[in-house]
């Protein structure tokens, strides 16, 4: 703060000249744009979703077909043509993708982070880290194509009953896509563990394995968990890979039943793309259902981001 006060003291004379005012206002407006964006997202999603539900539509001055909020949140059929909007169908599909990608990304990502932070030489790290970044940099539409054209046929050799569109291949590519996220945030947390702790462990006669699993990982646990949540929120919002690979037929599947991964369904994001590609008239019920799904998606990812932030802040070990 000392230098800040000094700076403002030194620059007070010129601070209000037209040029300073103009530039400062411009920079302030740029920063303000991020708040405007957030407010626009929230207001837009809430007002359009409000027009969708029977209970709130009259408040918005909307007449015409609407959907019941109870049916929306508890129904298990998604049939736009017959006016059945059960978002649970879509949520269950998204949950499957999230679960499936977590099974792949969490162990692999944490293992990668341990390797990079504890075992890898500087040289290996300088090669492996950019290589991992490539995994996150490949466009998701390319991953979707890979899942549909190469991974599904390869899986059908082992699992003959797998469908052309299936949750398994979509989960695999989404999992691979989010490995770098888990790995890089977890590795940051592990690198932040002070060397004293490791040296103390070695001093007690611990092996490298003991130190990595018994000291570093527990000490970095808050960062690791926050990386899980961030990565999974990314998996939930992932669109093109699941749109291409998971199919377009909405059906309610049990996320915990492994057999249901062989079938295809329609995750939330894919449903939004499908709605847009179909003939929806601006202002119709289908158009508004888009925003209702968008609101659910936005709320889920926002909550996860906030939780991740909270865990990282609240349970951080201070050294």
């Amino acid at each position, binding site marked *: 703060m000392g*230098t*800040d006060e000094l*700076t403002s003291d030194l*620059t007070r004379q*010129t*601070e209000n*000249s*037209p*040029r*300073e005012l*103009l*530039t*400062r206002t*411009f*920079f302030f*407006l*740029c*920063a303000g*744009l991020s*708040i405007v*964006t*957030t407010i626009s997202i929230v207001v*837009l999603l809430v007002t359009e979703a409000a027009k969708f539900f029977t209970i709130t539509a009259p408040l918005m001055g909307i007449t015409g077909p609407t959907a019941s909020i109870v049916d929306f949140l508890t129904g298990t059929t998604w049939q736009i043509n017959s006016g059945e909007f059960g978002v649970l169908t879509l949520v269950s599909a998204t949950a499957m993708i999230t679960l499936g990608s977590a099974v792949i990304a969490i*162990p692999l990502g944490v*293992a*990668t982070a*341990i*390797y*990079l932070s504890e*075992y890898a030489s500087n040289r290996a790290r300088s090669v*492996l880290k950019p*290589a*991992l970044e490539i995994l996150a*940099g*490949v*466009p*998701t*539409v*390319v991953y*979707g*194509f*890979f899942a549909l*054209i190469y*991974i599904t046929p390869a899986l059908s050799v082992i699992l003959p009953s797998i469908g052309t569109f299936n949750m398994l291949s979509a989960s695999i590519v989404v999992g*691979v896509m989010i*490995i*770098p996220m888990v790995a890089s945030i977890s590795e940051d947390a592990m690198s932040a563990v002070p060397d004293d702790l490791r040296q103390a462990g070695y001093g007690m006669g611990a092996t490298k394995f003991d130190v990595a*699993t018994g000291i570093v990982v527990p000490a970095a646990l808050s960062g690791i968990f926050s990386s899980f949540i961030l990565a999974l929120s990314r998996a939930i919002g992932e669109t*093109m890979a699941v*749109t291409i690979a998971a199919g377009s037929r909405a059906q309610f599947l049990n996320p915990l039943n492994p057999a249901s991964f062989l079938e295809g369904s329609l995750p939330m*994001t894919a449903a*939004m793309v499908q709605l*847009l*590609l179909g003939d929806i008239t601006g202002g119709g019920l289908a158009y508004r259902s888009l925003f209702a799904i*968008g609101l659910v*998606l*936005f709320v889920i990812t*926002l909550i*996860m*981001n906030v939780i991740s932030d909270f865990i990282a802040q609240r349970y951080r070990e201070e050294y």
Partner: protein
Amino acid sequence: MATNTESGEIEGFGQVSRTVGTIFRYLLVAATMFGIVMLAVLLLYVANDAIQPSTADPGWYLTFFLALVVPSVAVGWTVRRRDRGAFGFGALLVGMLVVSLMFSGGVALLVIDVVPPLAALAYAIGIVVPVGFAVLLTQQAHRISFTPRLAATTALFYLSLFGLPGPIGAAAGIPQIVPSLVGAIQSIPVIPVDWMMVTAVVGGGSAAAIGAYVASVRDTRAGLYATAAAFAATVVAGALGPAVGIDSVPAVVIAAIAFVPTGTYAWRGAFTEEGSPLGLVFAVTVVGGALVGAFAVNVLGFAGPQSWVDWQFLTSAHSGTAENAGLYPAIGGSILLMATVAALSFPLGVGAAVYLEEYASDNALTRFVDVNISNLAGVPSVVYGLLGLGIFVTYLGRSAGTVLVGGATLALLILPIVIISSREAIRSVPSDMRQASYGMGATRWQTVKNVVLPEAFPGILTGTILALGRAIGETAPLIMIGAPNVVFNLPNALGAKVSAMPLQVYAWSSLFASEDFYTKAVPAGVVVLLAVLLAMNSVAIVLRNKFERTG
């Protein structure tokens, strides 16, 4: 446990099994490699489908092996043993030539099919003239105060671009009295040939940049010579292009964007004091080997691979049959979208970063903006698409799927990333430098302009290019704002419908799903998209490494 009583040692004391640790270590390596290897295999598959290396003549491979691979490896190995720096320079030079050729292709596409040369020339002059006046005015800064200077500059730009009374007058119903400079140039009855106008715009811009670069390396005199030489080279390329079978316009663009800058860099690395010509030898061997190989297979009649990524694919529009389908409108659309996104997100993102790092005090509002930006970075891209659809299309009534709406939506999407990386770059500028500037009596804006931004610029640029790389691969927001799946022409205005490379790939792999598209058009599209991404990211990485070393 048996004890050896004579020496007092316990057998096995101080020893633990290494098995667990070793197995764990290998498991970790395997986990790290899993994703990388999987992606590498998938990329090999898609490259194989797109390029079909097995369809080439064995003689084709043999020719290139003898002409390109053997000499390159031999020369490269020798150079690397003598001087590692020179080898790195040579490799960078080859990479620069390849990447700049790709970019010049993009620019050529713009000047041939999007912006008419006359309009480009008119706008270039219409912007250069007031900028020149503004520079002159700034030199009079001690005589004229800021407010009249600003007013004069704004008026000049308005007059030059719109004339009097311009769009404001048109809205009030006053007819145009004084034509704008841009309009006046466009209505000149006698116009020069297309390629000369392109030379003036593209060659002039490139020559000016090269002059500035050389002047910063040597002195102003050398800079002026370099400008003249670069411009002359562009003109020569335009004049001689048709003789070797290349139209003048693309010849000018390729010379101005690819050959002249690469040549300048080669000159600097090879013939100035700190450079060494060894690296140039390596670069010439690689490029020459490729040219000799291409000439030899042509003469000997060896057929290359039946690649689906060919000239026809790059220059034709979508078609119902996979063999004839092409990516041209999507490539052009992606270029225009990226230009729009860069023009919108760069100033806004850097401005926000400057405010948060240099101006904002640590209060609740700043912290809120901070949290807000990191949360915006986590909002799914479809939601940004919804924002574009709801705000720009439905509320503001813009037509769906245009360059402007798509570009604005993607710019909002990458804005948090640009802000976060720019903030990091600005934060890494040592605060001593700021204090020194304030100590000299500089104001906050002067400090930002003269100290902070120039120091942070490489970092900001790297972050922005990486963010643009993210934007170029995004499909979902474009679908949400109603970008059409199939476009047959390049968009020629900001209000024209646009497609993009990933969108075209998606359309082929879902709407035109057939074995033919899956094995021909889609892999070819994926390869082109990944090649463009690779080029952008390598530019960002080279920039970062270069400035990390020196700075």
